[in-house]
């Protein structure tokens, strides 16, 4: 179990560095879409929620899991759609310019 924890830490640290590298130097124009888009990605908790909600028998774990699925799905769907809506405006404008 501890071994898995260490592996997790390795993955976490490397992913954080990738995150810094990828997102650095992003122009201010895109800060808001970046935030709402990355926000949608943080809705990845939906995967965890699905695993927790998946048990066959009704119990507290399943109920909590289902609530988590609803919240995380709002996060994912709302986040990606609103980002797309914003970026659409940027695109339209580019055509005009």
């Amino acid at each position: 179990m501890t071994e898995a924890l260490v592996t997790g830490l390795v993955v976490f640290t490397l992913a954080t560095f990738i995150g810094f590298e990828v997102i650095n130097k992003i122009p201010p124009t895109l800060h808001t879409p970046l935030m709402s888009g990355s926000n949608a990605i943080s809705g990845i908790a939906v995967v965890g929620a699905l695993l927790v909600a998946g048990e066959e028998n009704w119990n507290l774990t399943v109920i909590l899991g289902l609530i988590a699925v609803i919240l995380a799905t709002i996060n994912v769907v709302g986040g990606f759609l609103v980002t797309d809506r914003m970026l659409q405006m940027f695109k339209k404008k580019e055509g005009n310019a």
Partner: protein
Amino acid sequence: MNEFLPSAIQLSYLTASALFIIGLKQLGSPATARKGNGIAAIGMLIAVVATLLDRQILNYEMIAVAIAIGSIIGAVMAQRVEMTAMPQMVGLLNGFGGAASALVAVGEFWKYLDGAEFVPLSETITIVLSVLIGGITFTGSLLAFVKLEGWISGSPITFPFQQPFNLTLLALFLGAGGLLLINPHNTATFLVLVAISLVLGILFVLPIGGADTPVVISLLNSFSGLAASAAGFVLMNNMLIIAGALVGASGIILTQIMCKAMNRSLANVLFSAFGSAKTISGAGSDTAGDRTVHQIDPEEGAMMLGYARSVVIVPGYGMAVAQAQHTVRELADQLERLGVDVKYAIHPVAGRMPGHMNVLLAEANVPYPKLHDMEDINPEFERTDVALVIGANDVVNPAARHDVASPIYGMPILEVDRAHHTIVIKRGMNAGFSGVENELFYKDKTMMLFGGAKDVVEQLVSSVKEL
């Protein structure tokens, strides 16, 4: 076959993680941003579908219902939200993400309770951590949302012994966490941990004022990612860890940019209750009593703008609140018709979240090559005939350059006072978010146009049309 399915799921997770990274990378340039968002969304779809194949999942009906409910609410929110309300929207979504992560951890805890088997130490630690981060993200984001919606005052809320109180709570949390490690099946201790996490989230956002919202939203964005990562540790799921870490890093970068734009350290933003009554009285505000302002009417303003060679428009949140961005673009169109060179100067903390002003102007069809960042535009003010400040205040206060006693001293500003003339459209003489008096308004070269941003700009447009 039995061996194949788990590997296939893991490989799908790897694919999803790669798509998230590619998507984020493409979000970094206006030309590819929309595609990048789509790629990340596909990654999410792959992750969800792969998870549904997992043998742990048995009650598909309820899950389908939950996903449907979430999708509908999310889609409606995304369609309905006003661009001015984007910070609230992101705040709320952060909160939901944090709550989901915390609930995953709570659910896992209950699973262990039922099983009554031996709980490994690392499992308890990750659950406690996940509950802490997720809980803080949840209530902190909800409070930020409520503040941004204006349901409660946006000004910092403080009470005596706030810091010692928070520290005591944190110590209590650590103590209770330790107890849980010794006895992992103690439900009461666990509930205390959940409660403290939720309270900490509120206490964390309570003392942070309106001017600092961009920082808080960015930081909570980072937290929502870390919460997902923590949930990933609980479930030992690498994809959750990776996706969460990416978002955590992105949020931290934005937080740093915002802090730099305000010349403040993160600790200062979080703990100083900036803009509260206490801070202002401490500031060496040499009162404005006997100084005078030059007031003009819209006709005069229109003359100045119409006969200028170059105009730089400095939009602030006041413009957005008044929903004046479309009228402002109309004014710019009219001025360009007269041959005036019009640019927009965007301060990094204009608006209520990073990049907010750019989105608002994009909505009003302002071409984004006309929007200039602070570093680009500042050297140009000396050659600018008229700087038109609409509903911005602290970000154009020259005191930031020279008045060491001012709370905003050292903050990078848009140097509109270097333009030949400055016109400031403002409702009245109220101080800005930071509660600081703005000496720009008393300069000889500064003309004040009092009134609501939308009304004044509309009058400017009709006067310019007659030129």
